[in-house]
């Protein structure tokens, strides 16, 4: 039996600037090593908030519940500590950083994480050889390494860039926040293949998505429906197909009554 990687109990969160605006209302979720979980749900159900809260986004305040990650209190860690401990959030809207090249940014991030792990920092040459292996692994060329981070990137390039960062930083727990939104089918397949190539028995992935189509390519072990800030239904991969078929409307009454 695999070890529990992430244990969320009764998680409650509000918008940081408005305590009355509660988005997560007692959410429970358990993710074991080696698993892929999909979080689905209608717009406004709290999917992206869950992803942001797990990464420590300052725009949200946790008002209740616990999150245990590999036996440690995740909520007690700063965003950079979470990243160094192996949590990675692929952003729905990756941010452009002017004047900083992708390769420089990636090396700085990787070295911050390596330092935390007690590993030696990589110089530019060593880093380049690591990077080339990763690019090969996910089947991409190096065309966007010397461009400023996400600056002037198309929507698809930004999403690919998130996956490249994920490949280089080798997270233990990867959270993909609507990585499929805005991608055409070819880009979607490429991103999914890259994610699949990075799956290992000692890592876990949480895929947040509105649509089922990504799950044709990243096959989940568990599918959860999030509505009204709680998980209202969980099941196997067939639940995603059911959602695709019936939509989310049938979920809502359950969420309200719960």
């Amino acid at each position, binding site marked *: 039996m695999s070890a529990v990687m992430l244990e969320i109990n009764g998680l409650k969160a509000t918008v940081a600037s408005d305590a009355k605006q509660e988005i997560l209302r007692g959410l429970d979720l358990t993710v074991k090593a080696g698993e892929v979980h999909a979080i689905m749900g209608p717009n406004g159900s709290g999917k992206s908030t869950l992803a942001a809260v797990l*990464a*420590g*986004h*300052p725009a949200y305040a946790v008002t209740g519940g616990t999150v245990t990650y590999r036996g440690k209190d995740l909520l007690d860690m*700063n*965003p*950079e500590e*979470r*990243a*160094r401990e192996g949590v*990675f*959030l692929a*952003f729905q809207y*990756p*941010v452009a*950083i*002017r*004047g*900083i*090249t992708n390769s*420089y*940014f990636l*090396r*700085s*991030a*990787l*070295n*911050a*994480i390596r330092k*935390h792990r007690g590993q030696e*920092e990589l110089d530019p040459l060593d880093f380049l050889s690591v990077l080339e292996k990763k690019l090969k692994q996910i089947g991409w060329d190096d065309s966007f390494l010397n461009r*400023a981070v996400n600056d002037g990137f198309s929507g698809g390039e930004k999403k690919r860039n998130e996956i490249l*960062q994920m490949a280089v*930083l080798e997270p233990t727990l990867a959270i993909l926040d609507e990585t499929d939104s805005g991608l055409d089918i070819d880009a979607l397949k490429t991103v999914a293949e890259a994610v699949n190539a990075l799956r290992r028995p000692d890592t876990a992935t949480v895929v947040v998505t509105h649509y089922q189509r990504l799950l044709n390519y990243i096959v989940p072990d568990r599918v959860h429906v999030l509505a009204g800030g709680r998980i209202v239904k969980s099941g196997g991969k067939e639940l995603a197909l059911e959602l695709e078929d019936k939509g989310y409307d049938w979920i809502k009454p359950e969420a309200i009554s719960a």
Partner: protein
Amino acid sequence: MSSWFTELRERGAARFAEVGFPTTRQEAWRFTDVRAIAGTSYGTATSRWSVDANGAKALRVGDLSSAGDIAQAHLGRYADLAANPFTALATAFLDDVQVVSIPAKTDVSSPIRLSHRFEGSGTVMATPRVLIVLGDQSRATVIESHEDSGAGDSLSNSVTEIVLGQGATLDYVRVQREGAKTSHIATTQSHQGRDSVLRSTSIALGAGLSRHDLGAVLAGTGASLILNGLSVLSGRQHVDYHTTIDHAQPHCESHELFNGVFDQHARGVFNGRIIVRPGAQRTDSKQTNNNLLLSGEARADSQPQLEIYADDVKCTHGATLGPLDPTALFYLESRGLSPATARSMLTYGFAADVLTRIAVLPVREDLDRMIRGRLGVETLAAA
């Protein structure tokens, strides 16, 4: 002294006697108060130029004695005495002139460096003057720097004129890092011939008060201009960039990017005027001014001024103003970088956005080191 030179000085003196110092009641000087300059009596400074022409043979760098005919043909023809009282004042005190003249069809690959310092006892005024003339189809890189004068409450009043012949290409970088008590007033006026390319970067790091008027005339069809600038100020420093790009002919393009980083009580002013003359069709012009305010007391004012008299043109402008973006900070932290490193990286990136556009690599690398030092981000791992 040649009669044309004396006559030019006299015209400058006459114009200045007529108009005197500008006041904040004049629109162009609304944000920059020069009363302290007007109320100071300055002695004469000794200008100390150090010139490194990198051993290039085909050019003439030097004072009037070695480049008199070039100077006579061009000096004072572009920097308009009527446009700025300080240009008139600087012309009235014309002394030696640094002339860089590149003959037609000559490619000078190594950067030509002109570095100005001034000395004098007490409170002095220097009037550094530069003339850069590129013949048709020639190419050069010129770095003009104004270094710490260490001369107390002094005034540097500099004028540079740039003339590009047909198809000429100039990479021009001007760095101002004078002492915090010095006032620095500068005029740079360029005049571009057909299909010429000017890539200009102006960097303001020093001086307590600085005002730089950059004027560019695209006087030949197909001319291309990159007019960039970067200010990094702190304390009570003040910088005022006034740029005027004059699209006088069709099929020209201008790209303008001015970024300012203001910490503590520093203040930045940007006024970007773009004129598209009647008949200057197919003009492509883009202006961007970004201001990063690192403290609640820092301030920046940005003013675009578009005057378009042709109908088939593309002109865009945009300005930003504010502190570091919290979403960007979180993005960097979520990748394992400490909040301090994230702040340094974003601030540096803001400056590097201008530096990375400098085409000449060794020049860019020198400036990169200088800017890292100025921003206090040497601890960022080297790129």
